[in-house]
């Protein structure tokens, strides 16, 4: 009973936040609602026994996307952008609402009559877990069973950085004219304390990921949080045009992962088929290099941010 109460409250919270995100009259409110929605999602993942996802969601979904959205919001306000924000007319909006409701109804109907799966992939994954080289089933799926997906996904991250480099600008908006908040003792103290602690937690998550919730993505995101903190407080000011070190950093994960993926072909037989006892070690090497690239790329996403500045202009 108490469980249903909790689930019910969680569901109502999710739906209400989702709804407010979509219908709030002001953009700023919508963004805040979305960030809170992210936190509720993390809670929901924890409730549904998905700690790996909860960790990633709290760091990425709520934290990083939230910061990115607020940053973009600030840039738009600073530019006084006359956005094309004509919303649909009431009649159109009503028909769209009906359309969406029909879609939700159809989905609910489909889910209600979902057949019982014949193939039990869960059991198969658990049965082969011992051969995967790691003890955390999610890590096993990500880096071994479905490692090919992850390899391509690292390509997506690399592309996000390339896209940023193509269309991004450095501290472009008018908000970037104010002075940096550098003289705050409290902020300095926070950075001094959090930066090493963040690095410690990141490395711990990487190391723990083999057998417990965690892994390269969670670790990379925590490191990126440190990077973003340094970036937003003006202590780290990377250039948009990357020097050789940055180029190396953003590609090292992809290079190491694909080199190992190909390198094991003569020994293991297939792409990404880690030979025997080497699986665990190779996965650690891959995850470490992935962590570096992920942390760097996620930090660089804030390259065009105005950062923490005094309220000028």
């Amino acid at each position, binding site marked *: 009973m108490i469980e249903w109460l909790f689930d019910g409250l969680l569901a109502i919270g999710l739906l209400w936040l989702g709804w407010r995100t979509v219908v709030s009259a002001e953009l700023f409110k919508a963004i805040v609602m979305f960030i809170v929605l992210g936190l509720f999602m993390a809670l929901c993942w924890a409730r549904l026994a998905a700690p790996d996802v909860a960790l990633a969601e709290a760091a990425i979904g709520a934290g990083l996307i939230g910061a990115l959205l607020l940053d973009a919001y600030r840039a738009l306000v600073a530019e006084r952008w006359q956005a094309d924000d004509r919303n649909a007319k009431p009649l159109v909006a009503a028909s769209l609402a009906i359309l969406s409701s029909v879609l939700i109804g159809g989905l609910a109907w489909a*889910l209600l009559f979902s057949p019982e799966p*014949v193939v039990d992939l869960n059991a198969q994954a658990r049965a082969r877990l011992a051969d995967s080289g790691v003890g955390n089933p999610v890590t096993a799926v990500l880096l071994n069973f479905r490692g090919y997906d992850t390899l391509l996904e690292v390509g997506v991250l690399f592309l996000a950085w390339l896209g940023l480099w193509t269309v991004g600008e450095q501290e472009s908006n008018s908000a970037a004219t104010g002075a940096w908040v550098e003289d705050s003792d409290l902020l300095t103290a926070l950075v001094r304390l959090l930066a090493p602690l963040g690095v410690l937690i990141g490395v711990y998550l990487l190391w723990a990921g083999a057998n417990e919730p965690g892994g390269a993505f969670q670790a990379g995101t925590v490191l990126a949080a440190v990077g973003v903190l340094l970036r937003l407080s003006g202590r780290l000011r990377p250039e948009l045009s990357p020097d050789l070190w940055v180029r190396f950093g953003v590609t090292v994960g992809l290079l190491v992962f694909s080199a190992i993926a190909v390198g094991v072909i003569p020994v293991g037989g297939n*792409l990404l088929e880690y030979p025997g006892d080497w699986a665990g070690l190779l996965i650690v090497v891959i995850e470490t290099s992935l962590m570096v690239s992920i942390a760097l790329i996620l930090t660089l996403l804030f390259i065009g941010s105005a950062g923490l500045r005094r309220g000028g202009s």
Partner: protein
Amino acid sequence: MSFTAAAAVVPVLLPLLVAPLMLLLGQRSRAALLIITVIGIGWALLILNGQVLELGPQRYAVGGWGAPLGIDLYADGLAMLMLWLTWGVGSLVSGYALVYFAHGEAKAERFWPIWLLLWMSLNALFLAADIFNLYVTLELLTLAAVPLAALTGETEALRASMRYLLFALLGSFCYMLGVALLYGGFGTLDIMQLGWLVTPGPLAWVALALITLGLLIKAAIFPFHVWLPPAHANAPTPVSALLSALVVKGALYLLVRIWFQVFPNAGTLVAGQLLGLLGAMAILYGSWQALRQVRLKLLVAYSTVAQLGYFLLVFPLANATGWGGAILQLLSHGFAKAALFLAAGNVLHALGHDRIAQLHGVGMQLPITVFTFALAGIGIMSMPPSGGFLAKWLLLRAALESGQWWWAIVLLCGGLLAATYVFRVLGYALLAPAEQQLPKVVKPALTLELIPLLLALISVAIGFVGMPYLTLLDIGSPFSGQQP
């Protein structure tokens, strides 16, 4: 196991490795890396092609686990044809781009890694046999295509790319929700296993509807075409060619994979006619819009909207003939459209504008380019002898044989409209200029004129390779064994 068996992974892994190297090693090694990529992929495709011809469809278990736990790659005749198309158009356009970007290092430095990843994602998409892996390749494709479309940095291009990105992401999420439903209901992600396991029911129908919707959005099929013309027309010339010739084909390819392999029994009369109707609307509306355009590149882009519509006729005309015609349409349109966009780009570069009504005298100044435009136009307006003609002739035959004469009318109208817009451009271009005054032009480099010509020649030549094409297509086809 030897590397010959690993031929299937080269088209994916080679560009994936070369892309970061391009970024690290810089300008000097660019041409060398490019040549390695082109030759490496071509060589791997030759081996793979041999295996497919000899042994039938090939499966490759990444990681050695095998589906459903692992991810399999799968190559049949259709996949081979798409891979060859990508290789052919990709290599030639790469050559064009080497010259095109020679005087703009800032753009070139960004173009090359992104384009290689785009190539990689196309190859990965054509080889994928796992519906979630396909989602990842679709996202790769989007996140590579959009920055390329925005490469010029002009406001119009940025606005078009933004719209493109939003549409593509909407399509992705629809597709991914369909994948979630299928996994929830049937417990596997492998296309072939799903084909055996999927049972009709609410879950399967809703999943198919979501996946189809997502892919139609990504393939810019009418009425979801609105993002395509501005995005394709405002991109740099080589990018326009790649986007129109290859990128939209990814989603269409996936559409037939899902419909004919995951839901082999879904091709009911109603669903097929409905998709065919969308195709017909795309043909008529796209051609009509192309006719009304003022700018050459937009005309070519609207022509893409129309030409993609022909492919959807494979759903009502689902038999060996229709299948052969529809796939051939993808191939010949790929080459012809790349040629058209490159030729249009040459005109734009030479004149500084691409307003159709002011093309007088271009035919005298840029004879090769205008000839290329005409040659590629033959396929677009489906006149013999060309791949485009053969494709539409097969579709026409399929329509008449199955008694669905209404598609034949659409085909004929589409061809007529296409002929009108192609001749409209040629008419202006070949017209003698007023007052005997030739327009001032910046002549493009010879390579920039020859490469589109080569592409146009290939699009015509495809009309003559009927038998080898049909042999390859038959391998692993849902209509395998039937006489087209």
